[in-house]
């Protein structure tokens, strides 16, 4: 146990801990919207398209996170635009964006002279090297997103659920749809640092489906997902440190393990409840 406390003395580990917590709270909010609207595949497309931005930023010597953000926002709003126009098959458009982003990323990274040491960290995350500046960026973005959800909770849920009716009620549906696309894109990019492009989506979905084992109320899924997300992330982080394995993978593993255990618990509970009813 003393070993657990002793690693808290290291600044890098405290930073990692804060990053894991903030990321899981951010993902809990935004992921609830993603899972409820059933746009997990779209979010996957946005995530992988952002790799094109990372590659391009490397090539031109810019901040890779900035490149990823530009690509992610453009693809997210682009997909929203396509789905509102309804003229193109949305799923095919996403698949093109998904693979094109990855392809562009690989091409530009390959063309960049010299060795690109941080590339793996974008694919699989590198939470242990998160710095103070990134932490502040994460904190500010989290606070803004939280404020947005608190103020506009009702219109956000209504436009997600029944956009046509929301429009009749005078809610500016397009504004909320596009704003949410931008929030999704930026949340994903900002979370890439923690678990990497390949695994980031699970942070936005597994805690939510875990929460949905217990409630089907949007307002209650958010805090529950935050709880399960934070627990799984912290467990994964400690595990990855002591067993020296990549933290992103460990976090996803623990989130999934947690889901399976709770799913088993719910199944068992329902099974015994049914028995009670039969006896009664």
């Amino acid at each position, binding site marked *: 146990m003393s070993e657990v406390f002793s690693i808290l003395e290291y600044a890098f580990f405290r930073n990692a801990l804060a990053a894991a917590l903030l990321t899981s709270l951010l993902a809990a909010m935004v992921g609830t919207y993603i899972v*409820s*609207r*059933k746009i997990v595949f779209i979010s996957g497309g946005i995530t992988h398209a952002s790799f094109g931005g990372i590659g391009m930023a490397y090539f031109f010597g810019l901040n890779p996170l900035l490149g990823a953000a530009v690509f992610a926002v453009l693809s997210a709003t682009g997909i929203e635009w396509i789905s509102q126009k309804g*003229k193109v098959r949305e799923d095919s458009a996403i698949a093109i964006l998904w693979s094109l982003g990855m392809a562009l990323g690989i091409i530009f990274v390959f063309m960049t002279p010299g060795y690109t040491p941080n590339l793996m960290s974008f694919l699989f995350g590198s939470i242990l090297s998160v710095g103070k500046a990134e932490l502040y960026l994460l904190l500010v973005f989290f606070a803004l997103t939280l404020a947005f959800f608190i*103020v*506009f*909770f*009702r*219109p956000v*849920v*209504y436009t*997600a*659920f*029944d956009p*046509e*009716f*929301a*429009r*009749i*009620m*005078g809610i500016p549906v397009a504004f909320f749809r596009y704003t949410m696309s931008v929030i999704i894109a930026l949340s994903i990019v900002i979370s890439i640092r923690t678990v990497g492009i390949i695994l980031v989506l699970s942070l936005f979905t597994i805690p939510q489906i875990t929460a*949905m084992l217990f*409630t*089907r*109320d*949007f*307002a209650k*899924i958010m805090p529950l997902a935050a709880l399960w997300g934070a627990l799984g992330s912290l467990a994964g982080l400690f595990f990855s440190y002591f067993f020296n394995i990549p933290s992103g993978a460990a976090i996803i593993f623990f989130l999934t393990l947690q889901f399976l255990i709770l799913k088993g618990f719910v199944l068992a509970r329902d099974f015994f409840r049914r028995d009670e009813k039969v006896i009664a």
Partner: protein
Amino acid sequence: MSKPLAILENVTTGYFSEVVLKNIDLEIFPNDFIGVIGPNGGGKTTMIKVLLGILPLFKGKVTFPQGKPNMGYLPQISQIDKSFPITVRDLVGSGLKTERSWFPHLTAKQKKQVNQMLDEAGLISLASKPIGELSGGQTQKAFLCRALINHPQLLILDEPNTFVDKGFEQELYRWLKELNKEMAILLVSHDIGTISPMVKTIACVNGTLHYHPSNQLTEDLLKVYNCPVDIIAHGPVPHRVLKDHEI
């Protein structure tokens, strides 16, 4: 007779460049109960969207001589994602106009209004349930509550009798008859036989619109108006009495 609530004049509209409705005219008066019938793809739902103001017109105009009326709308349930995590209470609350536009949450007064509405509809015990756990009839009722909570002057219902059993259908029609004393109702259905005994007038929409100022329809009339729908006779057991006729 009082002034109409809404007038559609020479309206032509559709999606992208495809025309769905051509030169239709319709007047809706307070206390009207219009049954809108017609084949699938004939433009029934499109006409509703014109009334609700969410579809741009290619030609013609929509006017509201008494000012824009409060409209209650029940969409086709098949268009709704029933697995969305929203409770019955929140669903009905979504029919209320927000009173505070910069912090759009429900006020305590509005919450009470929602509970009252659910109580009237006999859904109060299901208020905290997600909509995915409701039966077909309960779902229609919950969406009808959402349409009614704003005290509409014009209630627009798009196929409210799908996914429901006969018992609920009868209950629904009794309820609508009661509501019709206070508001105009536009009821869309592909099944004319079921709705014709209760509506006052009938509009047949099939690309164009033909208005019958009564609820009596004969097969000949339907043929003349090019309205390919089934007529179901009403007795103890509803049964189809006429063969399908060609378009």
